[in-house]
């Protein structure tokens, strides 16, 4: 055993979840529909999304955020973190829609529309603030972000080496709206408020909130 264990916070969070009756129950309640293949489809995405929303609604943040916002130093950890929402079912799709089109789809749904509005309000970056957030409240930003999981706007981590996230969309074929589209996409991908909030949770450094 090395003296300084590298540790895998995401694995530790998964272990803690299965030792907690509520977290264990709602975790397998979404893993089941998110991995159950139905008639040529990889899964029933609607049921997977619904169960994911329930997971984040019912499970205490200590456990749900523990798995979603765990801090990582190696790929075994970041890949586990990326797999938290079962992206093969809940995130990826055959085609990547344009982000503005996806936003329109989101606005037709009551839950998605309100949660997206919460996200834009509570994760608004502000470079002059110490927290990097206009609202100076990491907990509200994390709540708004995790609230998008299980909607058509479901976001996930993009790569291994940073905390960049995005919904399943891009800004190809945006025409005249390319700037508006990039602005939307970058609010996810390059959001200093959200990144600081995730980091603070992962390191347990946000003493004001936790």
């Amino acid at each position: 055993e090395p003296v300084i264990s590298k540790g895998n916070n995401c694995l530790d969070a998964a272990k803690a979840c299965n030792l907690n009756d509520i977290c264990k129950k709602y975790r397998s309640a979404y893993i089941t529909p998110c991995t159950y293949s139905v008639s040529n489809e990889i899964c029933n995405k609607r049921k997977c999304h619904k169960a994911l929303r329930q997971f984040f609604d019912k499970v205490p943040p200590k456990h749900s955020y523990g798995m979603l916002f765990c801090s990582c130093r190696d790929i075994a950890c970041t890949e586990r973190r990326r797999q938290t929402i079962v992206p093969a079912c809940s995130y990826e799709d055959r085609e990547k829609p344009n982000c503005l089109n996806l936003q329109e789809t989101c606005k037709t749904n009551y839950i998605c529309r309100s949660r997206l509005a919460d996200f834009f309000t509570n994760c608004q970056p502000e470079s002059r603030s110490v927290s990097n957030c206009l609202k100076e409240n990491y907990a509200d930003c994390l709540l708004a972000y995790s609230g998008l999981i299980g909607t058509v706007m479901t976001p996930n981590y993009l790569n291994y080496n940073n905390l960049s996230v995005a919904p399943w969309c891009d800004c190809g074929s945006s025409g005249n709206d390319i700037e508006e589209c990039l602005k939307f996409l970058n609010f996810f991908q390059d959001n200093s408020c959200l990144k600081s909030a995730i980091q603070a949770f992962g390191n347990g450094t946000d003493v004001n909130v936790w």
Partner: protein
Amino acid sequence: KGRRAQRLKSRDCVLSEIHLNVTDLGLGYTTKEELIFRYCSGSCETAVTLYDQILNNLTQNKKLVSDKIRPQPCCRPIAYDDDLSFLDDDLSTYHILRKHSAKKCGCV
């Protein structure tokens, strides 16, 4: 007499639990995840019914001859715990265990 009854009761069929690695279950999964395994153990002496008593009598006076008759109730799960899911060490496959752990025990 009261103490004796208590001692008997403490051996009665109860739900117990043990903290294990998923690999300890011997089901062939490769994962570093863990679980609480709950199981039923204890005696069912105090739960003997008239049926059990009759079976006992019939085997003792040889009206029934079979080694497959069990003239006493067994301590067994009568309800199972919620499903357990975990991510394989390949970091892409999830597994789900159903009816793998007891939730409630009974003498059946």
